[in-house]
């Protein structure tokens, strides 16, 4: 708008995490837990066991499905949490002004990170052999009939400086290091932002920009390596050089969808009144654009492997496309994560009006969760995978816990960084 009128917004507004919101989140949690419980019982009594044993594979246990489901949600929600911090840092590195009122929303996602780190490490030690083939010691023993030369060659990446097949020190150290630094940067951002509220001035902004730059350098490396560690190493023989970006793109779209949904939720409750359709439009463009970016990476990975037709590479897609369990989900994945956002969010109006965005972002969260399920399940569960009550229940449990933690943290601080030097710019944001 051309008119730069005076703006009188309540900058001390604070999100009221009311009992009714808590109640609805807890209701979803309970429903999720019940579905999860039923799913576990069904998995325990399900009749997949004989099949696996007959095929000469190791016998399938119901709890493997539980572990795989835990792992999918660990990785997925860790991604959403770290993308909140990442997108926050991007705003400072890019010197963006439009996003000033919603910075705290982005950062709030990071509150899940400490919990995610604990869950990730705990799940790794509990699930161990059932998730990661490379944790078996016999793979590295040259005298064992199951000795695997390829995995032995990659062993140092997990076990250095320990002996291969013992304790995966390097792997665990990376996990601890990544979560440690991510939480460190998250706390740093929170701390500087809180100081800015107290003292004002532009020096905090400059400080934040420096820390954002450090974080982004660290994140550039750690996001890729964590994708290899946590997702790609499940299919230990296989590798793809762009896998790190592919996982990052999936995380980014999910994180952007989560940010957009929280912003729209807060706006619906009457907060963030300075956030108008121009800001929503920008969020919509991010979701739209990075959905295409995800598709670009998905397809780049697929096309090269398909075209080169090298057996050790194609095995990844053969496992998925020739399976009755997973092949439908490949197309569901592309439909939900590319065709739907592409055609629905193409017009300007659909990006400016909350209804479409809410719909698309919700579907994208489910879509990218399915994407992660497709990455994890075939390598861990083989033909015993799929999307059943167990998976759905686990998703609801994790989702409601994340929502509870994030909204709870959001309610503790002011919703808006009231001394951010670019607030005025963002009031006048117009596209």
């Amino acid at each position: 708008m051309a008119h730069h009128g005076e703006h009188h917004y309540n900058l001390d507004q604070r999100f009221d995490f009311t009992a009714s919101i808590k109640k609805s989140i807890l209701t979803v949690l309970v429903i999720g837990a019940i579905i999860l419980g039923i799913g576990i019982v069904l998995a325990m009594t399900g009749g997949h066991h004989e099949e696996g044993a007959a095929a000469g594979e190791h016998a399938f246990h119901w709890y493997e499905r539980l572990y795989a489901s835990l792992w999918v949600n660990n990785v997925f929600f860790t991604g959403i949490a770290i993308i909140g911090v990442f997108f926050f840092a991007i705003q400072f590195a890019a010197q963006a002004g439009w996003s000033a009122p919603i910075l705290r929303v982005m950062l709030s996602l990071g509150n899940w990170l400490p919990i995610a780190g604990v869950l990730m490490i705990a799940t790794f030690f509990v699930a161990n052999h059932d998730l990661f083939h490379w944790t078996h010691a016999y793979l590295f023993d040259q005298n064992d009939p199951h000795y695997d030369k390829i995995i032995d060659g990659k062993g140092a990446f997990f076990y250095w400086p320990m002996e291969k097949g013992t304790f995966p020190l390097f792997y665990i150290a990376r996990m601890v290091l990544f979560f440690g630094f991510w939480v460190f940067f998250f706390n740093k951002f929170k701390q500087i932002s809180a100081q800015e509220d107290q003292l004002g001035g532009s020096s905090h902004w400059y400080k934040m920009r420096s820390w954002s730059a450090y974080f982004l350098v660290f994140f550039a490396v750690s996001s890729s390596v964590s994708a290899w560690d946590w997702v790609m190493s499940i299919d230990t023989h296989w590798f793809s050089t762009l896998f790190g970006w592919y996982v990052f793109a999936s995380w980014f779209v999910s994180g952007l969808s989560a940010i957009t949904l929280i912003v729209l939720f807060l706006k619906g409750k009457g907060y963030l009144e300075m956030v108008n359709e121009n800001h929503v439009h920008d969020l919509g463009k991010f979701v739209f654009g990075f959905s295409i970016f995800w598709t670009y990476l998905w397809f780049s990975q697929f096309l090269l492997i398909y075209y080169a037709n090298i057996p050790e590479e194609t095995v990844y897609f053969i496992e998925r496309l020739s399976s009755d369990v997973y092949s439908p989900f490949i197309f569901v994945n592309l439909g939900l994560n590319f065709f739907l956002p592409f055609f629905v969010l193409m017009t300007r109006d659909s990006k400016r009006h909350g209804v479409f965005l809410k719909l698309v972002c919700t579907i994208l969260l489910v879509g990218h969760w399915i994407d992660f399920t497709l990455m994890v399940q075939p390598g861990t569960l083989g033909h015993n995978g799929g999307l059943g009550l167990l998976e759905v229940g686990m998703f609801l449990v994790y989702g409601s816990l994340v929502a509870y933690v994030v909204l709870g943290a959001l309610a503790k601080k002011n919703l808006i960084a009231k001394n951010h030097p670019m607030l005025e710019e963002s009031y006048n944001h117009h596209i």
Partner: protein
Amino acid sequence: MERDTHFILGVYDDEDVLLHAVEKVRGSGVKIHEVYSPYPVHGLEHVLGYKRSKLPIAAFLFGMLGTSLALTMQFYMMKFDWPMIIGGKDYAAFPDFIPVSFEMTVLLAAFGMVGVFLITSNLKPWAQPRIFDLRSTDDKHILAIDLANNSSLELEKIKEILTDSGATEVNKKSFD
């Protein structure tokens, strides 16, 4: 199309003054022919009351045309015209077609959009643009009012409205 020939021009130094002037002039019932400015003025099309361009629709349709043409072309070539086995794939191997289809989509969307823009903006090579005031290519904003469209208003009244709105000069301009 008969082109109107008599115009009255308001000359403005400042874009903020111009934006308010456009609102004032429109508010007093004068119909504005067009505003010429040396650079894009943010919010100008909004105060002028212009409707949103329909160019994105043209882009989408041309893009779809590109996709269909590319797919048809490749399918026809690879399946019927000159079937070849490449990399052990089917003749019509759909994933192979996607990069070319993507490029054709972008190409035709871009060409189509530029073409439609040139046509709707009357930017044909032999078009003779009417220069209202040469300084609109330098440092002045020119607000042009078509007298034929404002026959209900006195000439002096329009001049007064322009001067009141902050115009540094008010000129008359006629074309042959």
